[in-house]
């Protein structure tokens, strides 16, 4: 009889990386379905290409450059691909999507040592690289048309774009809000934007699922959204004509997508509740600051990447309370 002699503990909770990854994928499905509903073939194309390219690049880099065992089965490349797709407009040319995947996986993840070692959210690294390199393609947003399977979709500006443009032209917030879809439309997804950011309800459903499965905790999303709401609320009270209110800010752009799926990325966020709240507050405040006073109408991606950079320092100083100290 062969007996195993290993150190304690001898039992395991059954938690596994694969389970975590698949929980996230399932949580993204409502938003994916909404994106197909409103952006049709374009959504399918962008998602499929982003995922396939991400997986391909991870496999190729692992096999030929790093010469290590292949890691694509852990599902993290699929998630990076899906999250990258969620940050892109549905009419993005295939070649640009592939470049985005290469940057996200190659530079954003593998160059740092692969899963667990990257300091910055890989999907956001890819998105921001594309935004800076292909600004025209990355800011032309197809108008949502239910079940649109035509190849060429008509394009228009997103609510954030309209707001930014309108304020620069001297219009007041309330004048601009009249031109925009209602807040309800913004919640359900009938607005322009990237694949994943349009439907608040679908994103929140996914977030609740991940909370229930204990894959994320409330600290980052809540602190990010609350601080964004508070700052935009204060600004709106100070001058309602030039500063849009919390309702607008929370439901537009990548705010919810960022709060629920991007900022909560385990690898790039702090390890303690205290640290996570500090992190979330930082992102919320930076997002509003960039949206209000920065050159880009959208601030979430930059805010998250900036706070990703702070994470090691946050981990160094915001440690859990030691028992008995």
């Amino acid at each position, binding site marked *: 009889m062969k007996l195993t002699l290993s150190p304690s503990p001898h039992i395991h909770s059954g938690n596994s990386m694969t389970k975590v990854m698949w929980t996230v994928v399932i949580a993204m499905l409502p938003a994916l379905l909404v994106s197909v509903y409103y952006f049709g073939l374009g959504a399918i194309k962008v998602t499929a290409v982003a995922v396939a390219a991400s997986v391909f690049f991870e496999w190729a880099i692992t096999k030929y450059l790093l010469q290590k065992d292949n890691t694509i089965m852990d599902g993290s490349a699929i998630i990076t691909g899906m999250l990258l797709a969620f940050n892109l407009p549905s009419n993005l040319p295939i070649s640009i999507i592939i470049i985005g995947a290469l940057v996200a996986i190659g530079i954003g993840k593998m160059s740092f040592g692969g899963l667990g070692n990257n300091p910055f959210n890989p999907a956001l690294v890819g998105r921001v690289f594309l935004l800076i390199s292909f600004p025209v393609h990355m800011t032309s947003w197809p108008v949502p048309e239910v079940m649109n399977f035509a190849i060429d979709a008509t394009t228009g500006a997103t609510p954030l774009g309209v707001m930014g443009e309108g304020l620069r032209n001297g219009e007041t917030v309330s004048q601009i809000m009249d031109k925009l879809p209602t807040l309800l439309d913004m919640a359900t997804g009938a607005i322009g934007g990237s694949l994943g950011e349009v439907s608040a309800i679908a994103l929140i459903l996914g977030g609740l699922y991940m909370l229930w499965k204990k894959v994320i905790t409330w600290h980052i999303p809540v602190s990010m959204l609350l601080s964004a709401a508070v700052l935009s609320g204060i600004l709106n009270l100070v001058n309602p004509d030039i500063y849009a209110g919390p309702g607008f800010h929370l439901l537009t752009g990548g705010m919810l997508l960022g709060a629920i799926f991007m900022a909560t990325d385990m690898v790039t966020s702090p390890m*303690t509740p205290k640290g996570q709240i500090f992190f979330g507050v930082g992102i919320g405040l930076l997002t509003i600051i960039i949206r209000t006073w920065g050159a880009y109408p959208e601030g979430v991606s930059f805010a998250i990447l900036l706070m990703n950079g702070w994470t090691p320092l946050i981990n160094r100083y915001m440690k859990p309370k030691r028992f008995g100290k």
Partner: protein
Amino acid sequence: MSLKTFPKGGVHPEENKLSANAAIEIIEPQEKGLYAIPVSQHIGAPAKVVVKKNDVVKVGTLLAQSGGFVSANIHSSVSGKVKKIDVVTDSSGYKREAVIIQADGEDAWEESIVRSEELISEITASADEIKKKVSEFGIVGLGGATFPAHVKLAVPDGEKAEYLMINGVECEPYLTSDHRMMLEKGEEIMVGIRILMKALGVSKAMIGIENNKPDAIANMEKIASKYEGISVHPLKVQYPQGGEKQLIAALIGREVPSGKLPIHVGCVVQNVGTAFAVYEAIQKNKPMLERVVTLTGKSVANPGNYMVRMGTPIEQLVAKSGGLPEDTGKIISGGPMMGKAIASTEVPVTKGTSGVLIMKQDESKRGEMNPCIRCAKCVSVCPAGLEPFLLMTLGEKRLWERAEQEDTMDCIECGSCSFVCPSDRPLLDYIRLDKSKVIENRRKNSSK
């Protein structure tokens, strides 16, 4: 109603209390059986052998003398002849010195030991006499750590004992020996608690019991109601509720400072089994020579709880429970979270053997390790407030000083971190490595 519990962390593994309803069965010493009594069954210096080959011994005869203050006496648990003084592999996996006794089947006890089962409730011994007897009769903690009890009773100058905490928690999955003791020997345990209270000069005793043992809670509450100052507290079912520091924090909200002992916050903690042994020592002059051991496992035919003499090979318990199953992959001395895997069933039962857990082949292997995904589950479950992922990385990089700064010495080795890690990382293995290196460095530095 929310139950008391410790301030942070912890996990809730499957309880698997398969033997909870199995009444304690006595395993008698076997004629001609060989009983290996190790001289180190406790924390501290090994005891020094005082008998020699061919000496005739009775049950209760002193075999080895305590080797220092933090040490304990070792007594014979069977009557017979000393066959030899040899080394045997005990549950630690190391070869240790032991007195090997060939039992004569007579089961003859030392005359001084009171053999009747009658409950002696009245405590006539003084506090000093109690402490002397606890030391003389080799009483050590039966919770698994085997800390010499007389050391805990010797309150250092400058400290004062305010509470006696009685640990009836038994938070490890599978183990049920304390549970059965509270159900079947509750009266005796209560006398033991009163004896300990007298020895410490305290008027308050708190018994902590995890809420998955409602019958034990009810029984102990019934018995405690007869006495002043003894209260029973059901606690949340959360591992490691039975850890000394966690128990104190749960019961009275005081956190024992890092590096200090419970007496620093006015507490002395003893296991219920130890309280029973104290009762037998003071009232019946009986040394510590037998204990209840749970034999359990999903593949075991009849999981049970056995009152067994020290030195009995575990093989006898296995046989009583239906034999070693064919598909056994691991045999653990202790519980699944902190117990030690042993290499054979010849290992003798000692004062620290709280249970024997048989695991099937498919339960016995760890998963393959993956990179850390920084999910922070290990941080959220650590009851000591440490960062296991960091301590492992520091161990991999051999940065022992930094590990010491990150409070690796506060780790109670409960295993919650490794239990919960989705990447199957051997967190506790590296923390143990860090601790051993820190101790080594401290020793080197102090000898300079």
